[in-house]
């Protein structure tokens, strides 16, 4: 009986001390972790739409239309210094190779092509699947040298060779599943945003930035 009490008491004390110290550490770390995530997100918005200086959330622009059931799409309209609309940054999420991939994709105001991509969160295989966030794979979505994949001919597709058609994106060697997952999330994100704000929203980047979005979406 005495040993039993001793055992229980030991485990209770160890558990209490461990729990108390962890709650202290968590209280210190949690705000920092959240700040990191916000920082990464806002840096991502300006990165996936090159040249952007300010951004507006979708809620600010399309507040007139009710958010669709099942959660609104998280998107930012990116403006340059003159208030011209440069494009949209959409956050999308989907299943990757080992866990969910969360990413942000920049898309032109007319949804005609991608401007850039940034992976916010993934648990892909280190050294292979993680290449979705570094090197030349993200570059394949940037509008550099006129090579940005076009969404004009339908959704993007993944190919294993250098792309032929305008809507093709070359997969990473050894990480085809991760590459396909990224492209699928991009397609879905753009489609959701397009459905939310209307195809011709933002009027090709001219005029008052907020008004066209609201007008189109309101119809």
């Amino acid at each position, binding site marked *: 009986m005495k040993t039993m009490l001793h*055992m229980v008491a030991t*485990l209770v004390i*160890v558990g209490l001390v461990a729990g108390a110290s*962890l709650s202290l550490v968590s209280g210190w770390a949690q705000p920092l*972790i959240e700040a*990191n995530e916000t920082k990464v997100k806002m840096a991502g918005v300006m990165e996936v739409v090159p040249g952007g200086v300010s951004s507006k959330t979708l809620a600010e622009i399309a507040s007139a239309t009710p958010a669709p059931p099942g959660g609104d799409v998280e998107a930012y309209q990116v403006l340059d210094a003159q208030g011209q609309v440069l494009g949209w940054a959409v956050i999308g999420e989907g299943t990757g190779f080992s866990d969910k991939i969360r990413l942000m994709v920049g898309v032109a105001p007319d949804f005609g092509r991608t401007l850039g991509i940034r992976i916010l*969160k993934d648990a892909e295989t280190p050294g292979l699947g993680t290449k979705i966030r570094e090197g030349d794979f993200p570059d394949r979505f940037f509008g550099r040298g006129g090579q940005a994949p076009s969404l004009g001919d339908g959704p993007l597709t993944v190919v294993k060779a250098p792309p032929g058609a305008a809507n093709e994106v070359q997969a990473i060697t*050894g990480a085809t599943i991760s590459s396909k997952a990224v492209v699928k999330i991009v397609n879905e994100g753009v489609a959701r945003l397009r459905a939310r704000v209307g195809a011709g929203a933002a009027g090709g980047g001219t005029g008052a930035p907020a008004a066209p979005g609201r007008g189109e979406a309101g119809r």
Partner: protein
Amino acid sequence: MKARVSARQEVLKGLWDQNPVFRQLLGMCPTLAVTVTALNGVAMGAAVVFVLVCSNLMISLVRKWIPGQVRIAAYIVIIATFVTVVDLTMKARFPELSSSLGAFIPLIVVNCIILGRAEAFASKNGPWRSVLDAVGMGLGFTFGLTFLGSLREVLGSGTLFGVTVLPSWEPWVVMILPAGGFLTLGLILGGVNLITRTVEARRRRAVVEASRVTARIAVTGIAPGSPARGEA
């Protein structure tokens, strides 16, 4: 006090003689999984050093109060606490590193090195020696992972710590795949065994040589310090 191992020896044993990666083959899961780059090896190693030092110290301090029947449960809670501290700190301070090591930081909890040292060493020794032991074992693990990671990064990506070292190198993609981990580790283990065996053989030959001299002394009755011994 003479029978006890010196403090220096306590640290050094983890680096080579009892290296967790190359000699004890402990913690193979993170060893194979995260060593695609040298930096990952260093970061994983640093996390393990921290957890190992903290848990060894804590366990050696409380070992007398913990009943034998519940010691494993108590050790695991202590270890898990330190691992969570490392995980949260890395997420808060080094988000990049934390995302590249993925799930392997939380998995340090079940790394056999940590519980192995707690059970084999910290539960039987005082705090000072337990810390020395943890430092040695942790550095040995870091050394193993960094060495493995460097080889795999150089051959698999042509870089070392992210710096290009082999500019016109066609990377062997297999090296950063799991198969490359097994290949590299297997070859390293073979090399380490070869070295230890050679050293061991040399030592044994020296012992045999010495005993032959002793035997000759015994037979001939030439006393130590005489010219016969000087010859040997």
